[in-house]
């Protein structure tokens, strides 16, 4: 973490102000989540869902909405030509941390909304609300930090949008696996507490947010 928090919060504030005026990120994430849950609801309306299948659907929707919308915080800077603004005024660490913080906030909001829709609209029974909540929130943080890193890596490339998705998916597979296990447990599959999944996802989030500024700094200097 850089010595001064001021530049990090300045980057976060810029992202927040931009998002509050354009609503592009939350609209993309929200629409993907909403449409996916509605379609799943239509498909599974009369069928009782196996917890493992339900958990798989939950994490598939969250992962794809994040992989599409979150890297945009970096990609749009290159597209609109504002990446030079950061290079002139900021350090790569401040830019990465600020954008990661914003993406984590956005993903936490999306996960809460998605979870509420999921529990209301799909035929699932929540057995362990605490495990479900912890698993979802830890997963949101891990997915957001990983997607931010993918966006940072892909941003300088000419086919950046496709590349960021291609980078995100292999990075997120381990996380999805942990998340599905944890959510399935919370929905009544097995007797495990799901603690290992939550700890694993938090560790993954710490690893990607620690690695992110180092990787982004190298890209910045090249």
């Amino acid at each position, binding site marked *: 973490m850089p010595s*001064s928090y*001021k*530049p990090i*919060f*300045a*980057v976060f*504030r*810029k992202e927040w*102000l*931009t998002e509050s*005026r*354009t609503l592009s990120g939350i609209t993309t994430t929200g629409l993907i989540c909403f449409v996916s849950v509605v379609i799943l609801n239509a498909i599974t309306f009369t069928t009782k869902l196996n917890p493992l299948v339900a958990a798989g659907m939950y994490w598939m929707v969250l992962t794809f909405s994040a992989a599409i919308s979150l890297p945009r915080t970096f990609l749009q800077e290159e597209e*609109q*030509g*504002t990446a*030079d*603004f950061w*290079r*002139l*005024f*900021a*350090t790569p660490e*401040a830019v990465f941390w600020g954008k990661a913080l914003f993406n984590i906030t956005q993903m936490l909001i999306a996960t809460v909304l998605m979870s509420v829709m999921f529990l209301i609209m799909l035929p699932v029974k929540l057995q362990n609300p605490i495990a479900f909540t912890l698993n979802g929130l830890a997963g949101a943080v891990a997915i957001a930090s990983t997607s931010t890193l993918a966006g940072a890596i892909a941003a300088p490339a000419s086919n950046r949008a496709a590349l960021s998705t291609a980078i995100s998916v292999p990075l997120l597979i381990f996380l999805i696996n942990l998340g599905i296990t944890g959510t399935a447990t919370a929905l009544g599959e097995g007797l495990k507490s799901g603690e290992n999944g939550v700890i694993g996802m938090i560790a993954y989030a710490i690893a990607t947010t620690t690695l992110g500024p180092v990787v982004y700094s190298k890209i910045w200097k*090249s």
Partner: protein
Amino acid sequence: MYPVHNEDVILQVRGISKRFGPRWLFRGLDIDLEAGDCLIVTGKNGSGKSTLLKLLAGLERPTEGTLQNGFDNEQSNRSYCALDQAVFPALTVTEHLELAAQLRSQSPTPHSELLTQVGLQDHQNHQAQHLSSGLRSRLKIALAIQSQPKLLIWDEPGVALDEAGRELVAKVVKEQTQRGALILATNDPEERRFGTHALEL
């Protein structure tokens, strides 16, 4: 860039070159700037003026050569202003200045004097996407001089500016040469007169 330990030296460039594919844009340039200097960079379209200025601003890397400056904090002491430099469409004029100050970890200062100086006092709450190209140029000038840098790198200063804007350019050039050094890329005969040194590419 590496700092040099001589108080008078603002910028020292040795053997800087830039190549795009097989084509050398320029080779082996040496530049020395001290306080009070104003270097005018001229040349035909495509000669590499803007690329040279981006190199000096740290936005591009040279193929060969070294750059050394006489100050530590590059974010505060080196500024760059260019027509093709983008600003954030959804942020207002004041929010841009606040963002730049916070990124440099500067203490929050009122921007009213700076806004009046660049003629944006009536546009401070307008988003950048709603500003004309001339007003956006004034915003970029405000961002460039906000930290009172020791080195100001300015690409085509007068483009998109009206008569009052050109007077602003003259005023900023005068203040900058009193505070530090300046590099201008221009083919405008009026602006060339500001120079103490010249470099033709």
